[in-house]
């Protein structure tokens, strides 16, 4: 695929995902807005994928990329693990009547 087509493809996905996001999130009731925020926050830790690719790109490459990747893995993992766990903790407190 030529570079421009790749960009257009990625951009298409970007725009469509924003629409999907708006459609779903507007249906989340106010009761769940805090867990929504912490859960969405955990999902934004997806940047860990890029962090892993940087941290593990090999001894041949630039060591600076490895170190930056390592720091990014730490922060992103914190975000992912902490985010999903605390969301789970909050959601399990929501109980039905009786």
């Amino acid at each position: 695929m030529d570079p421009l087509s790749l960009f257009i493809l990625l951009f298409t996905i970007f725009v469509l995902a924003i629409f999907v996001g708006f459609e779903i999130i507007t249906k989340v009731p106010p009761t769940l807005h805090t867990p929504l925020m912490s859960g969405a926050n955990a999902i934004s830790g997806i940047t860990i994928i890029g962090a892993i690719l940087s941290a593990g790109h090999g001894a041949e490459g630039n060591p600076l990329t490895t170190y930056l990747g390592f720091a990014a893995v730490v922060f992103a993992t914190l975000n992912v693990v902490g985010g999903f766990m605390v969301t789970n903790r909050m959601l399990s407190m929501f109980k039905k009547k009786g």
Partner: protein
Amino acid sequence: MNDALIKIAYLVASVLFIVGLKGLTHPRTAVRGNRLGAMGMFLAIVVTLVDQNVLTYQWIVAGIAIGTIVGAVLAIRIQMTAMPELVALFNGFGGVASALVAGGELVKGVPSGVPAIQFTIAAGLSGLIGAVTLTGSLMAFGKLRGDIGDAKYPGEQLVKLLVAAACVFCIVMIVMDPTNIMFYWYLMIAASILGILAVIGIGGADMPVVVSLLNSYSGIAAAATGFVISNIVLIVAGSLVGASGIILTMIMCKAMNRSLRNVLFGTWGDDVAGGGVVAGADEIYAGKVKQTSADELAMMLDGIQSMMIVPGYGLAVAQAQHTVRELADLLKSRGVDVKYAIHPVAGRMPGHMNVLLAEADVPYDDLLEMDTANPMFPQTDVALVLGANDVVNPMAREDPTSPIAGMPILDCDKARTVIIVKRSLSPGFAGIPNPLFALDNSLMFFGDAKQNMIDLVAALKEN
């Protein structure tokens, strides 16, 4: 693993994120939804680990181990009242992770098969947004904890504008010559300063808006990083989070009756703290405020049919959630219909009050949104206001010159009797008196919310 298989796994992860978020549209399916999201993340991480471009593992394993331990400890130990601080902190970490990844990719150099301009602009945006998210979130964290006060200084907007211009200049330099890495670090420094400056002038009461907006930024930074490494799952997940944060920001602004512009650059609160307010308060309250006691209330609550509890952040500060639920249970056992009316800004972040009440075992069916609760007040025997002030101020509805004019409020004043539990007649964040306290059908129950509720429950049991 085969590149195509990895891409398909990323697609599955993206779908799991979407289905997971969809699960959050109802409390019944929410736990499962969150787990689906976590599964998507796990899948994405596992297939990335077997990617042929990953050659060494020691740094990855070390990073994941440290992040997992710290993240888990924070998630397990955090108090529910401190949730806004934790979410702010996590937003910042997500943002800086994206900025670091973009920096690492710039160091590697422009990859082939990608338009150079896509790579460089995306890296620049990721660095800018990521760094702003980090320092902005740390400022919000400090403000929510009360460690950092508000700082206003002359020429504030001009200074911000200059720093923002410096950021744009750095991005332009990166786009023109991606090998000149120094400009990326200059960008990180300038953007970090921008994040501090952007949040330092915003009042503590506006932090729900700031945290929501930074939540959105952390998503947008991840999406920008997706364009840097041409990765679809980053773009999808980042856009979802970006959209989510924007929606929550808009909801918060609407609930506070402010535009986003006004929150970010405004001076609301400065002009209402003057001396005229005190005189206004005397005029409104003089001779009209009626006090009540636990015994008197116990007698009054005997025989009512419906009660609407209106909690504000003061309730959480006093740690009175459990005692309030006890009161509600006691009244329910006597056939009273007890519900809770929750204003969108009742807590310190969107939906915060609901979490605090859920922690105290209040069933979620009893928690009513503002639009559901308001038509019910005229048929409600007793509205019990606990630690809320500005969000129940009828001036928002009646006085177009009031600083909170037009702000959506809970119409407690329309209930047959209003009981207000409060330490004193002191004003709320808006700094204005509340005529609700002086209404004919209002009774003030002065004191600490928790102690008052304990006394009231005891008096009811004796009665």
